[in-house]
């Protein structure tokens, strides 16, 4: 017998955690489906299979508590019990998903997993419901054992014995409590091995009219109920499977031995109490028994993301190399225009460049995952909020197949969840309010994703009451974010943008769902960290839409290159609205900043060489202006010359090199020139401290 090596077992565990996440996601979805269509046998079977898989996998990894809890849950997810408790089942499944999630998190951090009291309670309720005599046993019957008793129970469970917690209510009419206790105790002894009992003797039974016991037995719960329901002594009885107890701290060897034993027995189905009929179809579910093996057998590789990043970086270097070759080639053509070698070199270069392009796309594709992975989380969030707030909300999803870089997707998870929660909690009104406003009582939240050029757009919209612009502005003034005078200069869109300011929440009451001190400012900064932006549209009475725009990938970017004072800069092409030429005469001064007119719009003009309102001397008669639009604002960037657009491979700048917040990264061109990439949102926020942007004069 040999233990798996550390590396092997840690790999196995990683695999387990990953597949467990998928299982939990599946449980969440099935739970919601069952809530919508109670009694859907197919969904129930799906959950049961999932739980069964989780049971086997967690046992194989030595996570006994999880495995046992999954086992108990599996026991109650029978079509029979589900039919009797159709209303309860979805809640049980969702609670289970949450409980398992917490346990997994604990295991991952090598912590003792939580006991999952709520789930135990559900399971107990499901098991006891058919047994009507348990009614007058207090539901919160808790079994608190001494350390020794716990040890006995843990040991018995570890040996695979069936342990039941039994609560006996002594008949209040029994005038001989000690004798009654004795009989009850005898009935327990006859039913199995008493691991723990309280009170321990009849003398103390005088004042406590109930007996708690933990019993290891081969009998079924039903049998115990009959046997221990002693006439004229026991008035009621409750029998439930013992929950997994936190065992006292054990030494490492114990744990290792136990893990191995669990692994060995993982394939073996423990004896089940006959109260729970074992389904025939158990045997027809080969996939259920070995989820890990199943996942490994698929034609899939699970690769550390950093390995892909390394490949991506190398591809980036090659693109720079290609650019170097092209420049050298251009030079060669100029010098040896008659050389026949020229054509062959050009062909080779074109070929290489095409393959390189394919290579880059392929590597990027590895990192791409559909946003569906992200969207799947939200039905559950919305359901929870809707329940808590007593609202009726339906979630519509669109564009789930839109691909997005995995790292961006991960980074979007929290901001998006925040927006969705907000929409459900604050955006959508209560049914009564909606009807009063002439809308249908059921609110709709819509998630949509689509590609827009090199960007991916994700929209969160609700058909709620919209944002109260007045209130936002008032709140912002109260918080000292701007003066009343400044507020007057804001247009509609700009005033809405204020809700992204730190510390500004318009929710009157801080609810336990969304009011966690994390505001929309965090959403905004998360998006900016992704070189993305967030836009906001709101119509009073009709709803609010947040548009998140993120680049397809963080690894490369299509950019417009330009020069200012001989230096080379770039802006992401996605943020360029248009390019204009204006004359110096067309530049006017309003207050302390320069503006120019572009058709009907008056835009602020930004000069990189002096991000500030200082007049300077001579300028070219006509200057190029790159009109940049971001987050609903537009401004013009004055540049000396335009250098064309290029695919830039972004090199992260080391922190100590970055002195300016308005630079988000750098790239190297084929000739070795360094290009700085402007961080457009940062430029905007820098500017907005100086002058309101896009203010109509």
């Amino acid at each position, binding site marked *: 017998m040999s233990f798996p090596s550390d590396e092997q077992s840690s790999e196995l565990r990683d695999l387990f955690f990953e597949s467990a996440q998928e299982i939990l996601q599946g449980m969440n979805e099935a739970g919601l489906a069952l809530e919508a269509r109670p009694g859907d046998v197919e969904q129930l079977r799906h959950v049961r299979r999932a739980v069964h898989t989780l049971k086997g996998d967690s046992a194989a990894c030595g996570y006994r508590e999880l495995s046992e809890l999954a086992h108990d849950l599996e026991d109650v997810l029978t079509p029979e019990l589900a039919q009797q408790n159709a209303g309860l089942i979805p809640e049980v499944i969702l609670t289970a998903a949450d409980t398992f999630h917490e346990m997994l998190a604990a295991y991952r951090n090598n912590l003792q997993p939580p006991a999952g009291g709520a789930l135990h309670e559900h399971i107990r309720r499901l098991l006891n419901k058919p047994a009507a005599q348990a009614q007058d046993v207090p539901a919160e019957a808790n079994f608190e054992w001494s350390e020794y008793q716990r040890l006995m129970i843990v040991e018995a469970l570890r040996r695979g014995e069936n342990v039941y917690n039994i609560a006996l209510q002594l008949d209040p009419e*029994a*005038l*001989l409590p*000690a*004798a009654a206790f*004795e*009989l009850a105790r*005898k009935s327990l002894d*006859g039913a199995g091995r008493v691991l723990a009992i309280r009170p321990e003797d*009849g003398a103390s039974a005088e004042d406590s009219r109930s007996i708690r016991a933990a019993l290891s037995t081969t*009998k079924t719960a039903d*049998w115990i109920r*009959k*046997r221990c329901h*002693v*006439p*004229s002594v026991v008035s009621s009885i409750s029998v439930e499977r013992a929950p997994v107890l936190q065992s006292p701290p054990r030494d490492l060897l114990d744990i290792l031995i136990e893990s191995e034993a669990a692994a060995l027995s993982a394939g073996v189905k423990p004896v089940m109490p006959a109260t729970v009929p074992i389904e025939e179809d158990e045997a027809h579910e080969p996939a259920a028994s070995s989820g890990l093996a199943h996942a490994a057998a698929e034609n899939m590789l699970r690769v550390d993301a950093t390995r892909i990043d390394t490949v991506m970086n190398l591809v980036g270097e090659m693109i720079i190399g290609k650019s170097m070759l092209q420049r050298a080639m251009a030079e060669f053509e100029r010098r040896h225009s008659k050389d026949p070698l020229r054509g062959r070199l050009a062909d080779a270069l074109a070929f290489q460049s095409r393959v390189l392009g394919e290579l880059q796309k392929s590597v990027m594709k590895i990192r791409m995952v559909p946003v569906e992975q992200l969207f799947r989380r939200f039905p559950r969030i919305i359901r929870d909020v809707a329940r808590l707030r007593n609202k009726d909300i339906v979630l519509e999803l669109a564009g789930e197949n839109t691909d997005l870089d995995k790292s961006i997707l991960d980074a979007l998870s929290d901001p998006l969840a925040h927006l969705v929660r907000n929409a459900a909690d604050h955006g959508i009104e209560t049914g009564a309010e909606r009807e009063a406003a002439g809308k249908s009582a059921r609110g709709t939240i819509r998630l949509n994703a689509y590609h827009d050029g090199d960007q991916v757009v994700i929209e969160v919209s609700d058909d709620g009451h919209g944002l109260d612009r007045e209130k936002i502005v008032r709140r912002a003034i109260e918080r000292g974010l701007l003066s009343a005078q400044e507020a007057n200069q804001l247009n509609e869109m700009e005033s809405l943008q204020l809700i992204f300011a730190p510390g500004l929440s318009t929710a009157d009451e801080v609810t336990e769902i969304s009011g966690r001190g994390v505001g929309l400012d965090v959403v905004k900064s998360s998006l900016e960290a992704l070189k993305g932006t967030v836009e906001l549209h709101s119509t009073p009475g009709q709803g609010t839409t947040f548009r998140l725009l993120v680049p397809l990938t963080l690894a490369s970017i299509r950019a417009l290159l330009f020069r200012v004072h001989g230096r080379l800069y770039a802006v992401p092409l996605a943020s360029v609205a248009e390019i204009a030429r204006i004359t110096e005469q067309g530049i006017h001064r309003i207050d302390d900043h320069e503006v120019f007119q572009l058709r009907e719009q008056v835009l602020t003009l930004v000069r990189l060489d002096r991000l500030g309102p200082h007049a300077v001397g001579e300028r070219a008669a006509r200057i190029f202006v790159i009109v940049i639009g971001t987050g609903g604002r537009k401004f013009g960037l004055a540049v000396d010359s335009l250098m064309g657009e290029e695919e830039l491979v972004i090199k992260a700048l080391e922190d100590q090199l970055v002195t300016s917040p308005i630079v988000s990264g750098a790239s190297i061109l084929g000739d070795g020139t360094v290009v700085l990439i402007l961080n457009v949102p940062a430029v905007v926020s820098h500017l907005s401290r100086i002058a309101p942007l896009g203010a109509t004069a």
Partner: protein
Amino acid sequence: MKQFEALTRKDNQPVRYLIVDDSVFARKSLAKMIESFGGRLAGEAGDGCTAITEYTRTKPDIVLMDITMPQMEGIEAVERIVQEHPDARVVMVSSVGYQDNILAALQKGARHFVQKPVKPDALYEIIRYVLNDDGVTPPPTITVEEGKVR
């Protein structure tokens, strides 16, 4: 007297009782009760010693035994009977105030106890329980003859 659904043995024969009490009145009233349960009186005893010999002679299914009797106390009788016949199903009958004696009898092997004055409903349930209670193996489903109410 109220009639009960008849309790029977596993072989569907009427349950046979031995009633042990020093009070004739108590014996008569218990006998009436077991009759209403569909049972048969196999024997009677007024003291512990007679109880032992009657048990050996009649081999009853159930013994209803008073706790306090002359010559030999119920506890001792239970002990002797159970020693010789481990399968004996003895139900103690006692008035309040003899808790310690009951406890001792239960520890000596009595299967159950019933308080005086005996309520037929309680006794019926107890006997039904005790009949099915064979200690180790799961009890068979209770055999009650359908509709056979006497």
